[in-house]
């Protein structure tokens, strides 16, 4: 197995782990983090494909590599905006819950109900 296959398969695992975390973690910040894990998996997959395109003495296809640099910067921009929205939400409401019901408080005996 060469590097492109090893890291290509790793990338598919990262997308899966990130997707699981994105669905399961209730905190918005953890969702942003998980989304970044998905994103890095997608980037790595694209990078493995770029590596397979090595030709004529170049160690990889430079076009996808250049697009990856653009992609990483754009992902950072989106993350920064998402984190700032989240912090403002916390400043305004004192909570960051995404559930549609009233925010479950620490004294809530049945937090599952609040989720309905």
């Amino acid at each position, binding site marked *: *197995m060469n*590097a492109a296959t090893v890291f290509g398969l790793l990338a*598919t695992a990262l997308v899966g782990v990130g*997707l699981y975390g994105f669905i399961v973690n209730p905190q918005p910040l953890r969702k942003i*983090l998980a989304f970044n894990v998905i994103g890095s998996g997608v980037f790595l997959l694209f990078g493995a494909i770029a590596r397979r395109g090595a030709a004529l003495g170049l160690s990889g296809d*430079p*076009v996808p590599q250049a697009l990856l640099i653009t992609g990483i910067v754009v992902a950072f921009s989106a993350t920064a905006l998402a984190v700032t929205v989240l912090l403002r939400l916390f400043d305004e409401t004192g909570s960051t*819950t995404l559930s549609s019901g009233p925010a479950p408080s620490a004294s809530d005996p049945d937090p599952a109900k609040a989720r309905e």
Partner: protein
Amino acid sequence: MIEVFHLVPALLIGALAVYTTVARDTFAATVGFIAYGLMLTVAWVQLHGVDVALTESAIGGGLTGLLLVRASAKLRATEAAARAERPRASTRLAAAILAAAVSAGLAIAVLSLPDPAPTLAPEVLANIGPTGVGNPITAVLMAFRATDTLLEAIVLLLALVGVWSLAPDRVWGGRPGPRYNADPDGILAFIARVLPPIGIIVGIYIFWVGADDPGGKFQGATIVAAMWLLVLMAGLTDAPPISRRLLRAGLVAGPVAFIAIGFAGVATAGAFLAYPDGWSKPLILVVEFALMPSLALTLGLIMAGAPERAEAASPREAAP
């Protein structure tokens, strides 16, 4: 034997990704994410994408990690309530099945990629001569697909506008972030005095060698922005109020120069962002020199966050 150098980082990266997903404490998860970003850099080097490795370690791991760590520290009070919202076991099982299915589908795609792989490398090498740059990735970023780079710079600017517009009305035009107060004789203040001269030179070097070797303006600008953030966090200086005209001019100078050269291309070379014959290298340099300070400023201000304090001139208005 060489596979050890692929498999060990791959396993570490996978383990760190799982850790950031399952860690109970969000702060621990975000710290894990920084380690994850740094390990990914090793993967990028193994894939011979050194330019991407630099970007990943500077922006993907460094800046994004710092954003998440800071946010997790601020949101610590919401941890307990969020734990109560944890979905049921059935939901988790369904999510795990879905995630595994997506991974399996992608893995099948990876294993059945066409051989020989399609590549644009010959086209890039055939046309790199007239651009005058030696690094094929820089040639793609600045000549063949310059539109992407222009839009990328504008996306960063839009993100900053978005971050600023989240400020409450009463502090609009004020200074971003808190005023940091570190011990002036402490280690942070010491590092913030010693490191920036070195960091700025490293940043400019990485920017300059980008024409022929791995590096470039985004990676260099990130390092310069990081040095500014270090000085800010050590309390040695304060972030400028966002209403300052000079600051705003600095933010848009790079993209404006890029767009101006793009339109000049319509008149001189027949297409937007085209460079006339023999003028590619000087024009690329002008664009890069104009973009680099704007990018450093934009990245630094995005990291500094939304305005939180009204300008010092009117402290009474800021009081509730």
